[in-house]
């Protein structure tokens, strides 16, 4: 069922309550989920879906997903974490994910930003 305006508004308020110093707090999220369970608001499934979506977007802003072809050392991950934390002015954690389609190099995704440094990406740019 699609969320109506009121549900979206409530989800937004719950989302705001889940943040501490601009970052998602697990304790606050647990509290929000407890409140939803206790009070059973209108359209709980739609509400939780919207809430989940917002939290996922927010968490993605603090997480660097590093796709790579070839080995990536722990030191490289730390280096990227540091660079991204400095750029976005928040703590960014990194996780590695192998992707052979990149041919060589890296692709880092933080929120809706992509940092393309792979051979496949550069070839795609050349083909345009």
């Amino acid at each position, binding site marked *: 069922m699609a969320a109506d305006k009121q549900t979206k508004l409530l989800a937004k308020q719950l989302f705001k309550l889940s943040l501490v110093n601009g970052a998602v707090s697990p304790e606050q999220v647990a509290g929000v989920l407890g409140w939803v369970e206790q009070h059973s608001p209108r359209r709980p499934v739609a509400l939780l879906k919207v809430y989940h979506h*917002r939290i996922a*977007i927010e968490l993605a802003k603090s997480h660097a997903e590093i796709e790579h072809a070839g080995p990536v050392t722990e030191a490289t991950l730390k280096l990227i974490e540091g660079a991204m934390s400095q750029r976005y002015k928040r703590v960014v954690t990194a996780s590695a994910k192998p992707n052979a389609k990149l041919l060589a190099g*890296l692709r*880092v995704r933080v*929120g*809706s*930003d*992509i*940092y*393309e*440094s792979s*051979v496949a*990406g*550069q070839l795609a*740019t*050349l083909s*345009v």
Partner: protein
Amino acid sequence: MSNVIEQIEQQIAKLSTKAVRKNTGIIRTIADGVAKIEGLSDVMYNEMVSFPGGVIGIALNLEEDEVGCVILGDVSQLKQGDEVSTTGKLLSIPVGKALLGRVVDALGRPVDGKGPIDAKESYPVEKIAPGIIVRKSVSQPLFTGIMAIDSMIPIGRGQRELIIGDRGTGKTTICIDTIINQARINKVGLASGDKNFRPVYSIYVAIGQKQSNVVRTISALEAADALQYTIIVAATAGDNPANQYLAPFSGAALGEWFMENGQDALIVYDDLSKHAVAYRQISLILKRPSGREAYPGDVFYLHSRLLERSARLDGKGSLTALPVIETQAGDVSAYIPTNVISITDGQIFLETDLFNQGIRPAVSVGLSVSRVGSSAQIKVTKQVGGKLKGELAQFRELAAFAQFGSDLDAKTKATLERGARIVELFKQAQLNPVSIEVQAAVLWALQKTYFDSIEVKHVVGAANSLKEFLTSRKDTLLTAIRTKAALSPEIEADLKTACDEWKNTFVTKA
């Protein structure tokens, strides 16, 4: 072999190792040429957005959670979950003289099968209109070649003159005649070698029209050898609403290039009613709040920001606009007509009744006005046609009154007779614009009562005969009228001789 290796090495060297940042999003929903995209956190309003397969979109709605994009191209290959990225660029189209004689779509891509366009520059489709300081008041004429308009509702370079009327009343014909007339003037002016001559280039924007109509327009322009001075922007009824919405702005960008490079251009928006409908469709799909007649609240701004881009610039060129509005059952008080009437510098209203009576162009003198054009009118037209509008208005009033009785005094009868002759004289075949010097000569003949002795039903024939006589035999006289742009005693004497000569020939023929 080594060459091949070198080439590959060079290509590899070009590949920068620096990471390239892209701001991306994911298509959440896609329907009716509009995509809702999640992500694109850095997108700007009106920014070009790149979809898979080289398809381009424009970000029109920046909401808290998602971005609404209109897609300019084939949407059939796009699906939910596709990745979209920002380009950091506002939508631009190729501009310049290379586009003259070509038919392009709303993105400036050729659709006439004449090969690629070698344009050196590009201009943004959306641009802020020139400010107050850089503008100059309208003072140079733009001749339409239509006697009724040039003599009574004159248009100046940089003016916005609305052409409004019901369907099938000759709105497009007036625009095409004007474009053909510009081409004729350009040919004569460029051939004369006059260094001060400023050609007028035309841009015809077809919005939501049938493809067959656009083809007919192109053929008419080709037949009149006017296409070489014209660019046609086609967003036909088969194109998606996004392209129809963009087409006039693209046309304005094309015209602005001429204006900003010290040249004069004419742009025809045919028509803005369909443009408003296309914008309404996009706005409703984007779930923008709707107002009167379901149009969005910013439909006035849509047309005002478009038409404000037409101007005459100080020290540069001009862009004259002829927007077209189609009314329903002659209702000029509907939403879009009143909006555009208030934005433009006057309107030419075409009446269905006049059209059906055979008065073509069916210009309603009472409802038509040119707010700034009179200052651009040349002296000769003022001398011969200054009183025509008043005389014609008086005739219409008396003609309506005279229907109820036959006992009329001599003065009223004379006004009616004269009015009937003026009406006949202004009848003009389509695609046949008349040069300003011929117009002046014919109107001079009218003022000097040369047509008074001719029966009303023969006035059209007599006027055509006079035009032919003057163009074929009195070229020197016409050149003198054109160059001096005023009636001197010598020119009047020559005109008298010419008209006497013609009158004898015409009477003999009749």
